[in-house]
């Protein structure tokens, strides 16, 4: 019974509300106002990419280097690697060509010539005498216009003679192939010898 009355009352209320609302009277009862909620941006997780973006990141020192380490890096250590420029005191002048070289080492300028000539003779020997044959005799190198030194014929028996098709370089002393004593000459001009 009570529910029926309640239902009726509800219907009447609804009619009253809807019909009277057309005329805008009475004002509506208080109710909770509903507003569309605007969502706040969530705080994103921090990544290194936010800072770097398209660029690149360089490694940077984390701590300051000590003074000692900085000086060691700059100048080295006299006991191990000494980076300062020190004057060399072992440089001497070559007696035959006048270039400088270190004491105890062969003069670079002279050696270049000797090396090239040596290579040439070696190539010639290899080319002429070839490989795979038993080597039984010494080699004698002759340049253009040079004859065998005076020796008995038996001495030259079977010697391998290499003829270089060019003149003997001026600096290549022929002393080894010359007689040890020469006839005293008449002329009084002094001939320069062994010049570079």
């Amino acid at each position, binding site marked *: 019974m009570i529910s029926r009355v309640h239902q009726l009352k509800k219907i009447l209320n609804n009619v009253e509300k809807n019909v009277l609302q057309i005329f805008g009277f009475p004002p509506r009862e208080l109710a909770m106002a509903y507003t569309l909620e605007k969502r706040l941006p969530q705080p994103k997780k921090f990544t290194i990419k936010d800072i770097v973006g398209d660029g690149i990141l360089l490694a940077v020192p984390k701590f300051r280097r000590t003074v000692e380490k900085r000086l060691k890096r700059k100048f080295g250590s006299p006991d191990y690697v000494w980076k300062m420029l020190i004057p060399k005191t072992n440089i001497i002048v070559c007696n035959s060509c006048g270039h400088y070289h270190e004491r105890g080492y*062969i003069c670079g300028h002279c*050696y270049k010539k000797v090396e090239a*000539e040596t290579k040439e003779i070696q190539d010639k020997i290899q080319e002429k005498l070839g490989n795979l044959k038993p080597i*039984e005799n010494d080699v004698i190198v002759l340049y253009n216009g040079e004859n065998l030194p005076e020796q008995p014929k038996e001495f030259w028996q079977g010697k391998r003679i290499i003829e270089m098709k060019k003149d003997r370089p001026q600096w290549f002393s022929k002393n080894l192939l010359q007689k040890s004593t020469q006839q005293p000459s008449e002329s009084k001009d002094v001939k320069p010898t*062994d010049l570079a």
Partner: protein
Amino acid sequence: MNQADVTKLVSKLRIKVPDQHRRLRSPKGPEGRLDKLRKTVTGLIKFERIELNHHRADEARQYAERLISEAILHGDCHKPTMEIADYWLLEKELLHKLFKVLVPRFENSNTAFTKMYKAPKASSGRNIDKAILELRGNPYPLLTNKHSNNRYLLQNVLLDAAKYEYRQAKYAEMADKIGKNEEISQPKSDDVAKSKPINEV
């Protein structure tokens, strides 16, 4: 006293031999080291002058010296020597060279059979000590010119001139001194004072 003369049994090298051998590292170990040295010794006997790293040159030099001295000591009819030579010379035609060319060449020498020089350092690139190793009596141009004794070398000409001038100056000084002393002691005998310094010059 039946001891054999030891010096005749063992070949004494004429070069300085260090206490320890160099390792000459190689992935094959000690065998690889010997292989390297064999190659070098073969090259030395073949070409008579080679340029290579200093350590390897110095190490190979000792073996080459030993090989030649053994060959001189025992000759080519000695079986162990032949085996040694066969091991150390990779190219077999060099066996003939060792016994027929090098042995006669070095038989009567009383110096070392090889010579080693320090090669000039490269101005750029790896700073490695290079050496030039050669057999004595090779046909190639000499590496060092020993004409410091040559009278016509420019330095010697200049030095001689300087010495001569210095001597002349000294004599003149002495002559002056003697002249003065004599003038004081014997002012009358002028001719003696003048003649003396001239004789000395």
